[in-house]
């Protein structure tokens, strides 16, 4: 029988939650790296026992951990993230030039084909790649050197490269997203990049046709249809049907179109999930009700999923990397909250229950479907 392994990064360590295919009884291991911020951990799609984790601390900086046994044991690997060439400047919050400074790894994306190759999205925004299982890291400097870098500006949480989507149909195509610069695409395995943000709107951005400057919170794709992308923009939920060349709004009847995560059902490419948050000033659910919204039409028409989720006095947030889906026959949906709960639904979102309730604030959630 298949199993699932949920990898949870929190403000104070990593936790690994495992269950059989019924997803009813869970074992919880952790904290791994107790006391450290774990921005993200993720497993290789070709070797599920190979995991990578980003471990950070305001005191001690960045550490990368690697496991070869599914998270039972870990070893620190390379943590030298050196920008390639002159670092240059981006815009600071007040619009003045500010030098690029490495702060932390936000997201680790293992290759679809090689367990020793892994990408790292970092703050200040850049993309790095390791081809030796994390021992050494090289910047894919064509992104930062694309030319618009001096116009990039940090979001409230920093100027992080937070999303990396590897296109399974086009091995040389990668999408990345940066707060607050936008989405970029390469079609030559990371040598050259261009922004793909046409159709996005940002309040207060002086140039309505700006090529960068968008606070993209998250993008998602379905493996079987990689030309279709879904996006949670700062405000607005968006969709592209042409690999990012153009975007249109699909917020439809959502109670608010601010939020952070967005994900796609494992077997239904037009079934999309978001978690509406009241506003960029008040980072908690509208009406104090935690609701996942599901569209089965690829956007525009959304239904609230509430069964098993708190519907009163709820003031948690769900961060951008804190939602994931498994690929069992009845697709499981998972998300973690800043209140330390990890909720799971084994039936595509119709019913929810907490796997754990009292972890540290959850930063990231990933799921592995194991044989």
């Amino acid at each position, binding site marked *: 029988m298949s199993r699932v392994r949920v990898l949870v990064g929190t403000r104070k360590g990593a936790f690994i939650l495992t269950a059989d295919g019924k997803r009813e009884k869970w074992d919880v291991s952790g904290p791994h*790296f*107790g*006391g*450290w911020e774990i921005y993200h951990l993720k497993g290789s799609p070709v070797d599920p026992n190979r995991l990578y984790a980003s471990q950070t*601390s*305001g*005191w*001690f*900086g*960045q*550490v990368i951990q690697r496991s070869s046994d599914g998270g039972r044991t870990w070893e*620190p690997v390379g*943590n*030298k993230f*050196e920008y390639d060439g002159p670092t240059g400047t981006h815009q600071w919050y007040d619009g003045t030039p500010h030098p690029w400074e490495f702060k932390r790894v936000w997201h680790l994306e293992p290759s679809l084909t090689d367990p020793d190759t892994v990408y790292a999205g970092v703050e200040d925004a850049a993309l790095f790649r390791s081809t030796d299982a994390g021992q050494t890291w090289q910047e894919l400097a064509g992104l930062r050197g694309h030319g618009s870098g001096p116009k990039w500006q940090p979001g409230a949480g920093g100027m992080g490269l937070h999303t990396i989507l590897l296109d399974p149909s086009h091995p040389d195509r990668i999408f990345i997203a940066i707060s607050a610069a936008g989405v970029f695409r390469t079609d030559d395995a990371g040598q050259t990049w261009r922004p793909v943000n046409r159709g996005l709107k940002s309040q207060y951005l002086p140039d309505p046709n700006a090529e960068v400057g968008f606070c993209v919170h998250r993008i998602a794709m379905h493996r079987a249809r990689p030309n279709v992308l879904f996006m949670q923009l700062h405000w607005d939920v968006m969709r592209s049907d042409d690999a990012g060349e153009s975007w249109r709004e699909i917020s439809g009847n959502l109670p608010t179109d601010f939020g952070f995560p967005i994900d796609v059902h494992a077997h239904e490419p037009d079934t999309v999930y978001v978690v509406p948050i009241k506003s960029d000033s008040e980072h908690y659910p509208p009406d104090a009700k935690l609701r996942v919204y599901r569209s089965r039409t690829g956007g525009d028409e959304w239904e609230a999923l509430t069964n098993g989720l708190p519907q009163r006095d709820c003031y948690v947030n769900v961060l951008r990397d804190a939602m994931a889906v498994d690929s069992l026959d009845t697709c499981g949906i998972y998300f973690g909250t800043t209140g330390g709960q990890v909720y799971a639904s084994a039936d595509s979102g119709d019913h929810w229950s907490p796997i754990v309730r009292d972890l540290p604030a959850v930063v990231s959630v990933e799921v592995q479907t194991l044989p």
Partner: protein
Amino acid sequence: MIRVVIPYHLRNLARVGSEVELEVGGEVTQRSVLNALEARYPMLRGTIRDQVTYQRRPFLRFFACEQDLSHESPDAPLPDAVASGAEPYCIIGAIAGG
């Protein structure tokens, strides 16, 4: 042998106790001690000082013989008591945050 005291989280990272002992070749300075520490425990590279600039991380400080050496030259000799192993060289994490 040079004795080095390291903070809790770095002990866990390096899987050592609160104090490690190191052989340091040549003159005993902050730089040579940290070089020896990082050579013996490579997982500590970047956690105490920047890997490119070798600047001390801002929330760490270096003490020995009840003196704050954080702003001393990394190439200045450490006190004899540290060089002889009578006193440890201490890497201290700032008590800050929550």
